[in-house]
């Protein structure tokens, strides 16, 4: 019997063995992560957080919005480590339960608009633009807030809003407030939208977006708006630029600082294309604006995506742009005269000269062999210097599966030609999903941020760490 027990013990020791596969990928190689609670979230930007020296990547930060319990959307900021594990998050925005003082309104609006001697409270739906990590300081954010003040009968009045957060994601008070606004004409409730904010080498911030104008009479239109701001001095300069005309919109999307101090702003405009494409109200083009460090324009150009093989007009709405060593990579969505929409990519030189561009009219995933419409939302440069367009495929049928909107990943070489085998889609089969932006990590992997629609009003933010060809494994 003792022999029996000895064998039992030996057997237990043996069968408890387990061989770990050393080749199994560590969790930081590729992943899909969801974030959020049971409500609706929407991301607009993702950036890498570096340490104070700016050399060591420490994590990721996502900027977007969240549907609150009160039914309005607030700015939402989410921070993760490089493995996609949530570090912390915060949401804030104009609310009818908070006292917020508007900042710098041109006609000196006070916070007591109703004149009842009590600070006004109003609610707003926030629309996220960009977030800019500032090494060793915190984060700058910019977007737009759609204001509703029932007492004044105001509804969907868009303000450019921006703010700053410290390294713990605590909003920084600046000019006595945490969320600052620029507004256009209060009488006509004209809109301002904020799309980008960057830290300048001089220490100030450059903000950019669009400002709505009423030229009198017909439709209003937007002009480019940009402003330089110092923490100590407030506004250094602010300016508008654009074509004046009914419905002819010029809106800046991204801003950059060149090494000589000049400022480059990229957006969409009704300015006629230098390539000869249609412009005006029926033709939207990519717009390049360069100013000196004081905001005085020194150069501008407009280019459009054109298909030389047909007479289809492409109206190119810019959604994002990045700085490249060769110049600028731009992504957006073209609406065609045939009522179709396709993502596009464009390369401009450091001086704003057109280098290449292409429209993404893939039919790769569509078994019905018709061109699959899509939108271009984000752009990132892969380690091999190719450009990756992020966005969304519209509903399509792949094999026996029909799919709703899917997040899109597609790669283009530096001549804007599609790279074979580097196209993929992500998302739920029946949700309206899209990828909005991405960053390239120091390890060469690409982290995309997506909005994933679970239906029933539940939308979560997802970050997806991919190989540079768009594969997950």
């Amino acid at each position, binding site marked *: 019997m003792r022999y029996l027990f000895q064998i039992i013990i030996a057997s237990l020791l043996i*069968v408890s063995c387990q061989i770990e596969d050393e080749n199994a990928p560590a969790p930081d190689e590729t992943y899909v992560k*969801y974030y959020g609670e049971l409500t609706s979230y929407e991301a607009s930007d993702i950036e890498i957080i570096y340490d104070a020296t700016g050399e060591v990547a420490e994590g990721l930060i996502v900027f977007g919005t969240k549907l609150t319990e009160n039914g309005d959307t607030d700015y939402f900021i989410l921070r993760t480590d490089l493995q996609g594990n949530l570090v912390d998050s915060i949401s804030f925005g104009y609310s009818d339960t908070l006292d917020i003082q508007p900042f710098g309104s041109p006609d000196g609006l006070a916070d007591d608009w109703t004149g009842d001697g009590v600070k006004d409270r109003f609610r707003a739906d926030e629309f996220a633009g960009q977030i800019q990590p500032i090494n060793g300081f915190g984060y700058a954010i910019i977007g737009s807030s759609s204001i509703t003040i029932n007492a004044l009968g105001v509804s969907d009045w868009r303000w450019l809003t921006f703010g700053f957060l410290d390294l713990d994601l605590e909003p920084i008070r600046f000019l006595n407030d945490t969320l600052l606004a620029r507004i256009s004409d209060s009488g006509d409730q004209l809109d301002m939208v904020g799309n980008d904010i960057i830290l300048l080498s001089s220490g100030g911030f450059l903000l950019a977006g669009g400002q709505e104008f009423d030229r009198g009479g017909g439709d209003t239109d937007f002009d480019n708006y940009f402003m330089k701001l110092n923490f100590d001095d407030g506004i250094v300069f602010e300016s508008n630029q654009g074509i004046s005309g009914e419905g002819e919109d010029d809106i800046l999307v991204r801003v950059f600082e060149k090494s000589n101090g000049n400022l480059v702003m990229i957006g969409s405009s009704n300015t006629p294309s230098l390539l000869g494409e249609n412009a005006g109200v029926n033709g939207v083009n990519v717009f390049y604006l360069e100013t000196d460090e004081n905001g005085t324009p020194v150069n501008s150009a407009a280019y459009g995506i054109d298909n030389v093989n047909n007479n289809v007009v492409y109206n190119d709405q810019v959604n994002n742009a990045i700085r490249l060593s060769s110049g600028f990579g731009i992504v957006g969505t073209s609406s065609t005269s045939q009522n179709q929409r396709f993502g596009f990519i464009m390369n401009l030189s450091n001086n704003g000269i057109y280098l290449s561009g292409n429209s993404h009219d893939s039919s790769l995933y569509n078994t019905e062999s018709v061109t699959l419409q899509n939108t271009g939302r984000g752009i990132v440069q892969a380690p091999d210097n190719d450009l990756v367009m992020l966005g969304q495929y519209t509903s399509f049928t792949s094999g026996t599966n029909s799919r709703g909107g899917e997040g899109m990943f597609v790669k283009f070489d530096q001549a804007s030609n599609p790279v074979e085998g580097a196209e993929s889609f992500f998302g739920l089969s029946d949700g309206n999903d899209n990828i909005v932006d991405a960053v390239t990590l120091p390890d060469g992997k690409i982290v995309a941020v997506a909005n994933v629609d679970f239906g029933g009003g539940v939308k979560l933010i*997802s970050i997806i760490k991919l190989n540079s060809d768009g594969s997950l494994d």
Partner: protein
Amino acid sequence: MKKHLITLFLLVNACWVFAQSSSQCARALSQAELAFEQGRLSDIISDYSNSNSGFTRCLEGGVFSVDEEIRAYKLLTKAYLFQDDEEMAEEMFVKLLGVDKEHQLAAEDPAELYLLKDKFKTEPILRVAVRGGLNKSLPSVIQNFNTFQTGQKRYNEKGNDTGLGIGFWAEVLAERHITKGIEVASGVQYRIATYEIEGEMIENDLNYVAKNTSNMLRIPLIARYSLNYDNKDEDGNRIKLLPYVFIGGSFDLMLKAKYLDTRRTGGTAYTLPDASQDLKEADQVSSTNVSIMGGLGVRFRVGRSEVDFFSIELRYDNSLFNYINPDNRWANKDVNFGIGHVEDDLTLNTVSISFGYTRSLYIPRKRKQYR
């Protein structure tokens, strides 16, 4: 009615004839045993040699009961043995072993019979065991992977949405006794193993259940030690209860793996079609694996000769390598995104209870050195 009456008459008649024959055969065997006791060995042999004798007709005609047949062959063996007709004694002994596979000699049996028995292989050349039972999977996570922040992923916890991870298996083994109760066995096993995962993407609000079912063909190799294998009780009878332990290994070949009844609740509920992709085809699970196993059980001797067994066994199967192919962990978008599930690196272990029946197979023959 008439037909039934005739049938009944014939049956009663047959029984009466058989009873008469049995009675006569029992008398013939008793007479032969009496002759042996009286030392009239040549009478027994001549009686057996005469094909028309009642004794021979009873023996060859299958009228003897099994016990009578054993007594008859044993009697003939002894008779030939004492007549120094070794060849016929061996022939009778082989016939005896044909009836009683592992015939146990009694204390009063002559030493010559013991010597004769020693010349023969009386142990089974092989045993064939058929076994089947239920298993419960016990996945052992090597490394966690999640798509969500809570990390709340539970395996086989019986709840509203998940089961216990119960599967089924069956095997056929060929077994051979080596020495002193140690046996080796090998064969084929078919196993269905299931594990069920419940993931909480958003606590109480956005959850999923993923049920991974795999079908494997396994080739086990087992070494078993049985207590009481050769032991006898105080009355000289073999002990009927044989506790045993075993260890072994198995080469596992994946036949198929699928997600069944895999669904997400929260938002718009989504169920992965059961007809979704075979995980083996998609190369998401390892196509081969190696397991080690151990367990304990008890065998009961069954049958008249008590050389066959009924057994109950507890077994633990420990897979050595990752069940998941880490290179294709994210290959199924509908699982990753639609369900929100991603597989952990894990070894798919099981604990099982099974019932088996073992049949001993014999070819009675002389040992090599006596041929």
